């Protein structure tokens, strides 16, 4: 699986939010960092197919091995892409009048988890996310951290091939953050994971991970984690 952006541009009310973005994402974790208004959330929405580029192209392809033709890249249709994406928006609210259990169950059905597995899957996620005790509480009555965990669960429940998370660790305590980071590490063996974060200290460095630094809608750095310190310094200035 690969996502390739080619000279992508996106503007809103004459303000260029993304400017000539060219890069590609493959399996593994990519951290997207940048100051407020750098275009992180716009980039994530674009990758989630929620918005479309005004200039340039975003292509989702997968490697297909055919005995007769050989190996080739096949472009995915929008329906195929949307089936395999997990997404956490920046300010996740869910449906505030639903209970935790109902909401996660609702999303499990949405993600096409077979009916006979839904109850078991939901119970397991709620238990591991320490949400079983609040499963009958409405989303509007949850604390910030609890709501964020519900948001993360809905994004991860179908083990997405493409997982796009906007500020996923916001409001989580250290233990919860480690728990979800471990899940993401495991998922990254087979999936593309793109995380927008401003919690640079919380980034668990791994040689496999990548870093994308956005500045005023442009890519200022895209590469390995070895530049994390320099990027952190740049962000603080």
């Amino acid at each position, binding site marked *: 699986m690969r996502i390739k952006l080619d000279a992508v541009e996106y503007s809103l009310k004459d303000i260029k939010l993304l400017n000539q973005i060219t890069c590609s994402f493959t399996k593994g974790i990519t951290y997207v960092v940048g100051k407020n208004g750098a275009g992180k959330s716009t980039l994530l929405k674009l990758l*989630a197919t929620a918005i479309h580029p005004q200039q340039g192209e975003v292509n989702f392809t997968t490697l297909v091995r055919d005995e007769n033709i050989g190996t080739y890249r096949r472009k995915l249709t929008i329906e195929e892409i949307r089936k395999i994406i997990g997404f956490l*928006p*920046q300010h996740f609210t869910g449906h505030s009048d639903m209970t935790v259990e109902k909401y996660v169950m609702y999303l499990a059905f949405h993600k*096409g988890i077979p009916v006979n597995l839904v109850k078991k899957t939901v119970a397991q996620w709620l238990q591991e996310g320490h949400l079983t005790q609040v499963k009958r509480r409405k989303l509007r009555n949850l604390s910030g951290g609890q709501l964020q965990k519900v948001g993360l669960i809905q994004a991860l429940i*179908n083990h997405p091939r493409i997982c796009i998370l906007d500020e996923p660790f916001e409001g989580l305590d250290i233990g919860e953050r480690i728990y979800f980071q471990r899940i993401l590490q495991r998922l990254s*063996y*087979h999936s593309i994971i793109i995380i927008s974060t401003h919690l640079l200290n919380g980034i668990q460095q791994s040689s496999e991970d990548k870093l994308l630094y956005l500045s005023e809608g442009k890519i200022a750095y895209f590469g390995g984690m070895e530049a994390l310190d320099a990027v952190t310094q740049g962000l603080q200035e």
Partner: protein
Amino acid sequence: MDENQELTKLEKEWKTHFDRFTAPEPTREMTLDLIQKLKKIEQNQSPVDLRLELETKQNSLSTKDKIVNIFLSQWNFYGTTSWLLTGLVMIAITFTISENTADPLFGFTTWIKWITLLVIAVIGYSFRPKNEGNEIIETLSYYPIIQQMFTRFMIVMGFQLVVALPLCFFIVGRESTILYLVSSFIPVFFFGVVGFVATFWLGQKIGLSLTLIIWFSQVLLKKKLLFQVPGDDYFLVMNMIIFGLSILLLSTILLKNRFSENFK
């Protein structure tokens, strides 16, 4: 000898061969065999691909299971409590009118007006606007958005028709005929379709306002077009026209889907 030792041995053999060209070259079979073993080790070490497992299960689902799945996802959005409340309101309207109206024909006309108003309200609630985040999450579904919306519409209409049709007999009592079923079905279906299609094309606020304007125009105007009762001059013709119009409106959904796909 385990695989690691085998690999070290083969690596040593190749190294010696490169250092001293006269040293024997390991056989191709040995090398290929080892590559396969290495691939296997890599597969065993990486975690299980849970997505692949899920997709295998999804692919084995029958059409019936898929329909049940999408039905449950849309049913849950409205919520069982809301469905129960809707049913109770319909029953309350029916009994209030049947107890307070002596003339069944007048009672029926009043009843169908209130029931259609309730249909519009339920459509409005079922297709209520969501914030951007929720909208993206629900678009990224196993089911295309058009299938989701249509299923929700079917549930809303199906439930209300199933409750409304038997209730109409409480209003008309002894006058009950199959034609009264038609007079109940057509306006309920029409306002459901108009509400759904207008919301789909124009968004919840404008769509709902437009549907309410049509409803009010029918309630306030003296000339009856939509709320026909058996015995009216053009009862069957009008109902057939309204039904045909509803089907045409409903089919525009497919048009929008095609239009937006081409646009993309």
